[in-house]
């Protein structure tokens, strides 16, 4: 699996992804943020639809994760709770298709700058490397 570079998509809300705005991709990579992760920013994680997560898999993602505010401290009150439920729906669908549910994950993180933002990406990078390419790609690269 050593030559496998995963394709990981991260959907992050405006508040939890401030670091990327401030530091840019390069700055973030210097802090150890894996290059395998491509971030897409959302005004709120609650905006994210189940279909958008599935689309990411259709577009070739091996793993997808969502970062939203702490459950009880979402800037938009319920946004990150909604996102977590939608991630749950995708996990259920992947299980039905006999694909590892852990290919999709929800993280509730504090907003602003902190090592957990980088750590979440590293964890997903490690996890997906271990799992290997997504079977949903049907052998496509």
């Amino acid at each position, binding site marked *: 699996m050593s030559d496998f570079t995963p394709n990981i998509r991260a959907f992050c809300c405006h508040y939890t992804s401030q670091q990327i705005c401030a530091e840019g991709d390069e700055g973030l990579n210097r802090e150890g943020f894996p290059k395998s992760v491509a971030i897409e920013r959302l005004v709120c994680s609650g905006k994210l*639809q*189940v*279909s958008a997560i*599935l*689309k990411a*898999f*259709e577009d070739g993602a091996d793993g997808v994760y969502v970062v939203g505010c702490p459950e009880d401290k979402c800037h938009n009150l319920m946004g990150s709770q909604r996102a977590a439920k939608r991630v749950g729906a995708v996990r259920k*669908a992947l299980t*039905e*298709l*006999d*694909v590892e549910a852990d290919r999709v994950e929800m993280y509730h993180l504090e907003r602003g700058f902190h090592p957990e933002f980088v750590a979440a990406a590293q964890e997903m990078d490690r996890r997906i490397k271990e799992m290997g390419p997504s*079977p*949903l*790609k*049907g*052998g*496509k690269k």
Partner: protein
Amino acid sequence: MIIAERKPINEIMEMVKDVKRVLVLGCKGCVTVCSAGGEREVEILASLIRLGANKQGRTVEVTDGALVRQCDKEYIDGLDNWKGKYDAIVSMACGVGVNFIANLRPETIVYPGVNTSFLGGSAEQGVWSEQCAGCGNCILHLTGGLCPVARCAKSLMNGPCGGSQGGRCEINPDVNCIWQSIHDRLERTGKKEDMLRVAPIRDWSTAGHGGPRKVVRDDLTV
């Protein structure tokens, strides 16, 4: 409204295992309101079918669409929009929709994408419960507006069975004994004596026990 729920994906994948071009067809009626088969759910199912097929190492062409309703002849004509573009339809309407397509399009292969669950309503977001069984001979005027046909586990007509305890049904303590609720409501609304009426033995032919039912309105037929 009619409440439905998407079928397990594997069941749907099995239906379409040999199909090369699938039309996933939503309905903008009841199933949109209960989030089972509207445009949003169509998009999700279309995606899941493509992903499932990829996983099996084959490609399927999935088109998504939706009709205003699938329970009216006129709207079924809308299928012509996708003429020649699919080999089979997975309908996300209730069973009525699937039947209507099968009735009106003798050559078309159509599969159900949802399980049609019951006639019900949503008392809170994301939760639906059964309220009416469409028995064809409504008696709600005698029961305080609460339906013993649909909401009593035994469809009893003359008060609770012996298993009702603390206002709960013996089949499951999470379920209200509807006869207790009927009693309480009749009492609150000053109609307690209605409880004493003995309901005659019912003719269930209107409830489907006499074969498929039909309503004909002479004033509307042409």
